[in-house]
């Protein structure tokens, strides 16, 4: 089966919720495949966004490019609706002055239909997420 980046607009992924939004830096920027565009948080933490794959996928590796993110929690769901999220991964990122944080996570138990990213805390008043990619395979479509 073909492995590819599941977290792309062009592959059918969608950001269905984000707690912050600046019209100039919308959450779709996270999955447009371009690290130059980004989503910003606009205030107090925690802040979150949810990515919908519109199918069942199995994720093997996640790469998150961000700035000023301190503690990141990722939950996943295997339901058809964005419910029943379970805790999956939690990371404390390090601050990388002047360059993007590039967090690579080798995933275990990567079956998912939705991913929920929760930024619990940040190194500054605001944080940005430039891209999330999830390498893996599409398992099946919603019936």
């Amino acid at each position, binding site marked *: 089966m073909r492995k590819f980046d599941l977290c792309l607009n062009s592959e059918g992924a969608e950001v269905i919720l984000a707690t*912050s939004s600046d019209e100039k830096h919308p959450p779709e920027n996270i999955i447009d495949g371009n690290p130059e565009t980004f989503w910003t948080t606009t205030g*107090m933490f925690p802040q979150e966004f949810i990515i919908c794959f519109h199918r069942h996928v199995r994720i093997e590796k996640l790469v998150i490019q961000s700035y000023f993110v301190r503690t990141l929690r990722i939950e996943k769901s295997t339901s058809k609706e964005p419910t029943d999220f379970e805790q999956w991964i939690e990371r404390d990122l390090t601050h990388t002055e002047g360059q993007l944080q590039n967090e690579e996570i080798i995933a275990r138990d990567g079956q998912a239909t939705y991913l929920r990213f929760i930024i619990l805390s940040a190194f500054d*008043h605001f944080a940005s997420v430039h891209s999330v990619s999830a390498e893996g395979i599409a398992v099946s479509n919603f019936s």
Partner: protein
Amino acid sequence: MVKLAAKCILAGDSTVGKTALAQMFRTDGAHFQKNYTLTTGVDLVVKTVAIPDTEDSVEFFIFDSAGKELFSEMLDKLWVSPNVLCLVYDVTSEQSFNNCSKWLEKARAQASGTSLPGVLVGNKTDLAGRRAVESAQAQAWAQGQGLECFETSAKEMENYEAPFHCLARQFHQLYQETVEAFQALV
């Protein structure tokens, strides 16, 4: 268009008028309660301020210690990760002004390394005959600390909005600078 959210902490000695100012701001001057007791009062005031000449706004979440400033471990919890600071003294109380540096230090310690935009507010200007802190004295200290300086009377509804509008502008500017920095990363 963006709506920012800012956690605002109110710092200063008891009875300087922190709660009165926050409630004035919340109700657009509709309420001045004469008899606050230390245990009453709302802990959280939520209010949105538009940024002039933009379509942007800042929603404040003002954390009023409602008398808990007497118990410092409670303040530590209430003050986690502040975005902006409103530091208040009473213009008739020199001690409340002198204590501002202590409050400022405590607030900045909670901001853990990030900048903390702030205003210094001298309240109770209606008690002109009892004034103990001169404007110039407060101005000089505030300037040295990088704080914008205001005088208000919550009782006479004088100028009570200005400090919050200033905080909104400062926070909005900080957002724009931060976004520019994000843009320059890649």
